[in-house]
């Protein structure tokens, strides 16, 4: 019995291991599509997809846009500023308007945790969470897992440490859920003021010093540190953060084995990560970007359409 996905992809917390594997396995053939001369398949032809981004994001939005166009879908980008949203239109009204326009799928990034689920509960279109507040960023978690699987050969038993501002990171949460479900060992590392309450109860180790994390891990997923964390007093300065928690070549040289280095981007070179590390031989940061398009194509493909009650038309004698 093949796993199937629900109408919406809101997060990885409630997906089963089988569902996650389905997405990762489905992403493989889509990698090949991106290598073709004509990077287009007609699978989602005629589908309308809206990229509804309440928070600015170039790379995630572009990645989704490529994924959508390579599947032959029609895409529309709605950015928060300058749209009716910034004039105070509520999320509920935005949802209803989209539904009234008979949109097939919505890819949404929003500043409030739970916003994707909120929208998914109110419209018939598929909703794909491109990041909701601090809650989850499921396609990022999936592409991170695909990258690890490609590089290491498996996910089970791999030691992955997320480094940085875990408390405010939806990438960290999605990684945590996805990796633990597929049997990886997950740890987090960062200043205590940026580690959320109860994180160990989610099946995760916590390291207070990045040296300990480097000693332990097979893979480091280095998270972006945002300037506002300093402004809001969680850490004293970015300089101090780099000195104490930066993933530097010196620290990595002392590692017992070579570590795979990941980063969701965009990077703050010289804050959470050294340029030489980001550009170095063990960095798979660019593979993450490539895998991102494939994973997003897989998600769109698996979620789109599918009316099983008419599936009889597809049956009958071997091939057709």
């Amino acid at each position, binding site marked *: 019995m093949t796993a199937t996905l629900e109408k919406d992809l809101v997060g990885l917390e409630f997906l089963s291991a089988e569902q996650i594997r389905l997405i990762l396995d489905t992403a493989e053939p889509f990698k090949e599509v991106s290598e073709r001369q004509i990077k287009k398949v007609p699978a989602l032809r005629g589908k309308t997809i809206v990229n509804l981004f309440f928070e600015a994001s170039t790379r995630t939005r572009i990645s989704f846009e490529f994924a959508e166009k390579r599947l032959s879908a029609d895409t529309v980008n709605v950015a928060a500023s300058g749209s009716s949203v910034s004039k105070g239109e509520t999320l509920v009204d935005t949802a209803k308007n989209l539904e009234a326009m008979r949109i097939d799928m919505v890819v949404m990034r929003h*500043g409030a945790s*739970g916003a994707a689920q*909120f929208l998914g509960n109110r419209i018939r279109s598929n909703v794909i969470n491109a990041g909701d507040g*601090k*809650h989850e960023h499921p396609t990022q978690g999936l592409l991170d897992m695909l990258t690890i699987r490609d590089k290491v050969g498996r996910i089970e038993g791999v030691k992955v440490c997320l480094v940085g501002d875990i408390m405010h990171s939806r990438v960290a949460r999605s990684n945590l859920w996805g990796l633990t479900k597929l049997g990886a060992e997950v740890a987090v590392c960062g200043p205590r003021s940026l580690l959320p309450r109860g994180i160990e*109860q*989610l099946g995760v180790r916590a390291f207070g010093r990045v040296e300990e994390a480097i000693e332990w891990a097979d893979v480091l997923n280095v998270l972006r540190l945002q300037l506002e964390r300093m402004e809001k007093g969680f850490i004293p300065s970015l300089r101090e953060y780099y000195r104490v928690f930066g993933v530097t070549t010196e620290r990595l040289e002392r590692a017992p084995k070579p570590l795979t280095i990941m980063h969701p981007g965009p990077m703050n070179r010289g804050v959470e990560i050294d340029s030489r590390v980001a550009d170095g031989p063990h960095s798979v940061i660019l593979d993450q970007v490539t895998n991102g398009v494939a994973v997003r194509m897989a998600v769109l493909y698996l979620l789109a359409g599918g009316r099983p009650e008419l599936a009889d038309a597809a049956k009958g004698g071997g091939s057709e």
Partner: protein
Amino acid sequence: MTRPLLLRGGRVIDPRRDFDQTADVLVVDGKIAEVGPGLTGPDGADVRDVRGLVVAPGLVDVHVHLREPGNEDEETIATGARAAVAGGFTAVCAMPNTDPVTDNQAAVGFIVRQSVRAGLARVYPIGAVSVGQQGEQLAEFGEMVGAGAVAVSDDGKPVVSGHLMRTALEYARTFEIPVADHCEEPTLAAGGAMHEGLVSTRLGLKGIPAAAEEIMVARDLLLADLTGGHVHLCHMSTRGSVELIRSAKARGVRASAEVTPHHLVLTHAACEGYDTHAKMNPPLREPADVAALREGLKDGTIDCIASDHAPHAYDEKDAAFDDAPFGIVGLETAFAVAHTELVLGKVLTLPELVRRMSTVPAVLFRLPGGTLAAGAVADVCVLDITNPWVVRSAEFQSKSRNTPFADRELVGRAVLTVVAGRVVHEREGRPTR
């Protein structure tokens, strides 16, 4: 002139006099005339058969938000008073975070007049501690009390300045009113949407740590000790707060405390799925906190139950969790929830519950009622404590529907409510004439 009223054959509970037996209650001229077996009313009396039901002093809720003036789309004093009597409450105290703030004599007088016009539950205004609830300048306590205010509070917000709280406690002694504080250390709580714990971590929401409440509870208890004033601590939610209150009371500090029905029943697990009907301030906390609050209510550390009735328009609560306003309605479910979970749950006896929902709050805020002694005002509720009912928010008397108890089956309901000897609420079916 209201007809005399005779309630026959009910289980009469009057905690003030430790009275709990089957008896009749006779009401004449708006006062309790007599309580005893086999009473006969004068000619023309309205006789009600209340056998199988409980007759208690009308419930008193010392913490409600009625939104008038300013947000009449959510609730008005009239609709709030109607919701109150539907819930068995004969008196409520209305918090001053209206728009404009109720911080002067005229505003207090307005609330009193609206209450009289509605003619249902008695609505007692609580005046603001500070002008505009801005936390800077003391409001005119004397003028407000003269116009009918029974307490002062900046609820909605904490009184942040220690100096202002101290001054308020001292000044309030002149008028023998309590100062009710919403205990929240603002910098710790800022931006928080729910309790800081494992659930907030999983949901990716900023949390409000228990310490944010406990720090201000400790401060307020110390100031009450310093000044000899009466501090009333609103909507307690943590086990740490309960311990602080317990030891302060043991030292003789003049403190009183209230707890809401939802904090006695629900935990932060109710926020799963980002249900905004579980979003309130202070937030729902952990099972250990619920247990400590129940224990505190039982041993009197927490004096009374108050609903913190906070109506909101449906579309305001229909938003992402971070964006939704805090608060839930409570007048029409308070007794039912408390009875189902605490009395049927064997935490409190029914007389103990009536004491905490009627007798004690009336005493704390120096209000009439809370007893069925002869000569007392005839504020009475008749409660059905046997037939289960299902909460249907669409049938609420309140204008608002924001409750986490929708579709719950509960036991405990007011079938008749009497204020000043007049029947102001009755439910079909019982009690029959």
